[in-house]
């Protein structure tokens, strides 16, 4: 699992790629926090375009990033979510807390 950060149009884009399971989430959790702390963004987008698989570890990652942004007055959007991760997101109910957009 890989993560990279880039500023586009005033927002911080966190692009994830790979399989977001417990193993993958462990690999990117610390980097996500570091990138957010470095940029202190008002708006942040997690781009799920290249996330082919996700389990509930992805929910923990999204909630974690959302909390970190909340602490600095930032907002999170999750975009380009494919069918399988979307089903996990819907089962968890977090789309009531975080703005989620399907692919």
């Amino acid at each position: 699992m890989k993560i990279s950060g880039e500023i586009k149009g005033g927002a911080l884009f966190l692009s994830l790629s790979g399989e977001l399971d417990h193993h993958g989430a462990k690999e990117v959790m610390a980097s996500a926090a570091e990138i957010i702390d470095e940029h202190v963004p008002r708006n942040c987008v997690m781009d799920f375009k290249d996330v082919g698989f996700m389990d509930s570890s992805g929910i923990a990652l999204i909630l974690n990033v959302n909390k970190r942004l909340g602490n600095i007055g930032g907002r999170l959007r999750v975009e380009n979510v494919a069918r399988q991760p979307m089903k996990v997101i819907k089962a968890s109910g977090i789309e009531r807390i975080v703005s989620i957009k399907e692919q």
Partner: protein
Amino acid sequence: MKTKDYIKVSFPSLSSNEGFARSCVACFAARLDPTLDELSDIKTAVSEAVTNCIVHAYPGEIGTIHMRCRIIDDKTIEVSLRDTGVGIEDVDKAREPLFTTGDPCERAGMGFSIMESFMGKVKVRSKPGKGTTVVMRKTLDGRK
């Protein structure tokens, strides 16, 4: 109930084996000619069950996870995950959505809820100090 077909695989509780376990079950399930959605559901549930073994059954140590898959009556896949780890004191509590004894930064407490909603039938047997067995079944409509 005729068991036509089964596999047994044992592997160490390393997080790098989560992907292996779900791919392995997906390969086995392929002979039932599942739809892509059915296959995704099975992989998701297996990922949750295996992660539970890694995080909760064997905290701070590497134990063995025993996985068994079988096909029942040509249309139902059963996946069973057995560990000999710490076990669960209160299974009903563990199955509640959002309940976790894990690190809340890492775990959302959604594992059992997702297994239930993605597989249909989930049975949990556990004895503190002895280990836990999770048995999940999904009946596939297939692409007949």
